[in-house]
């Protein structure tokens, strides 16, 4: 077993990228993810990698594009305003079908907002974010260890599907310190990058493009992309269910609010209430089938998120208009306190006259 280190989420994700064999980091400073740029500026030269503090997030994501198109593993990180600026590049990366890993340590918005922890970029992440019909795979870790595991997973998923993978972290997870183990992952069985632009020695030239003008050609390309997205939906939807099977109240949350939910579930279970937690681990593909199954017996589904209500739309889409889907949403870079959550649960218990068992 590898040794445990104390690391904050931002440092852990940096080291995990190194462990995943990534040797290209491009980024632009923004709080609350500055630990990453600082860490990578030290670490990349140590492992023979490249660190560039780019002139903007626009440049950073395009440097990622460049490294990816020649076959290298590359990562960039930012926080909400910077991720907005990257959307152009992410659309191009998706269109050119390049593997890339992007981390968004979300902060309060809109606009410059604040540097508090937030989950208000869920729509942007799960609906594509830039222009065109495309999807990014979205991972939502809830602990520093899971951040590490997800970074390693993200590089594999990106390579497997030739698709950008976004990791959504809120400011709390980026800043908090927990013990982690970072072990180099076992070699995954991934397709060869024969599409990469590595010089045309011994083969016809490769090209990478997204301007597709031929009649029906773009339609065909989009159909192919959609087929890929359906395959990803079928194979990669991930979730975690805690005490969900018999839950009368089902909480739905991801990231750091899911941690608060988990402890509240434990507390109410000890008191005899049938309450559970459903945690989407991938926000896209959204684990709809699993959620529908877990919510079957629930008389109330309470979505808990640090935004004005974004995840809740996927939950409503999954469960349909008949389901009793409620929202405890808090925008503005503010943490949801256990007390607020308990007050809401108590209200639901009262309303539905739920009994202890």
């Amino acid at each position, binding site marked *: 077993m590898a040794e445990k280190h104390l690391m904050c989420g931002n440092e852990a994700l940096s080291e995990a990228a190194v462990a995943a064999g990534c*040797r*290209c980091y*491009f980024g632009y400073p923004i709080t609350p993810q500055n630990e990453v740029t600082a860490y990578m500026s030290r670490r990349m030269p140590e492992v023979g990698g*490249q660190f*560039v503090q*780019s*002139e*903007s997030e*626009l*440049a*950073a994501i*395009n*440097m*990622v*594009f*460049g*490294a*990816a*198109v*020649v*076959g*290298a593993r*590359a990562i960039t990180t930012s926080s909400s305003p910077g991720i907005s600026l990257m959307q*152009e*590049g992410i659309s*191009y990366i998706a269109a*050119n079908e390049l593997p890339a890993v992007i981390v968004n340590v979300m902060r309060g918005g809109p606009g410059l907002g604040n540097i508090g922890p937030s989950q208000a970029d869920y729509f942007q992440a799960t609906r594509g974010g830039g222009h065109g019909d495309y999807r990014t795979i979205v991972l939502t870790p809830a602990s520093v260890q899971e951040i590490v595991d997800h970074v390693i997973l993200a590089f594999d998923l990106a390579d497997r599907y030739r698709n950008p993978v976004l990791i959504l972290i809120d400011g709390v997870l980026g800043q908090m310190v927990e013990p982690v183990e970072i072990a180099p992952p076992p070699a995954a069985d991934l397709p060869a990058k024969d599409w990469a*632009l*590595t*010089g*045309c*020695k*011994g083969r016809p*030239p*490769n*090209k*990478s*493009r*997204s*301007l597709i003008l031929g009649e029906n050609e773009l339609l065909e390309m989009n159909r192919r992309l959609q087929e890929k997205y359906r395959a990803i939906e079928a194979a990669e939807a991930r979730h975690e269910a805690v005490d969900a099977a018999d839950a009368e109240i089902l909480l739905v949350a991801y990231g750091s609010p899911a941690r608060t939910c988990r402890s509240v579930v434990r507390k109410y279970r000890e008191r005899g209430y049938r309450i559970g937690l459903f945690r989407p681990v991938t926000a896209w593909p959204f684990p709809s089938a699993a959620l529908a199954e877990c919510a079957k017996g629930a008389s109330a589904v309470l979505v808990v998120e640090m935004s004005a209500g974004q995840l809740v739309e996927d939950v409503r889409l999954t469960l349909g208009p008949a389901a009793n889907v409620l929202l405890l949403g808090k925008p503005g870079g503010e943490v949801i306190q256990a007390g607020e959550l308990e007050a809401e649960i108590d209200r639901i218990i009262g309303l539905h006259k739920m009994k202890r068992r």
Partner: protein
Amino acid sequence: MTTVFKRPESLKDTETHYCSGCGHGIVHRLIAEVVDELGIRERVVGIAPVGCAVLAYEYFNFDVSEAAHGRAPAVATGMKRARPDLIVFAYQGDGDLAAIGMAEIIHAANRGEHITVFFVNNAVYGMTGGQMAPTTMLGQKTETTPRGRNALGEGAPIRVAELLAQFDGVKFVERCTVSKPRNVLKARAAVKTALSLQIEGKGFGFVEILSPCPTYWGLQPRVAMRMIEERMEEIFPLGRIKEPAAEG
């Protein structure tokens, strides 16, 4: 039989989509010839801009990627950093490089990235229909400067070559043109110097090429070529702006 017009191996055997009298085709050919001559076809990677030359990968017979509008220098940075053994060049128009992509070109140049940039300056936006470019000359009429470009409010043409030459990371800057055979030969020599610089690992090389856009200048091809000599060269003087440092 003379073989002067033999197609370089680095150029595919296809018709280009460029208007007749356009400079892009000539510049493609120069680059292809030099790539052949330097024997780097199998390790060169080009970047096509967003502009009339966006389809460059249909013409060059080596690996080519598109980049988003103006971002070629950032893409080139990523490529070269990830694979220093590749010879990476960006091919950009004046809207691509000097308007939307000004930040990317300045910073790649200032970092002294080991890449080569070919800057095709035709003083208009060709692809979108002849609008004003940052290099449009004062008084020049375009789709968006119907009364002629006015320095007040529209700015004066930007001399990119001179702008970039000031950075220490930039090792070679030359402005040339394809207006007549003698100048084409000079342009070819500049392309060769710039790519050789990269092969030798010496730093950032930049070649600006004044190029005609007969279509949106509203001129016959031959007149357009004359226009470069009579008007453009006055504003964008030809010549070597920064010599590569001597050996050693």
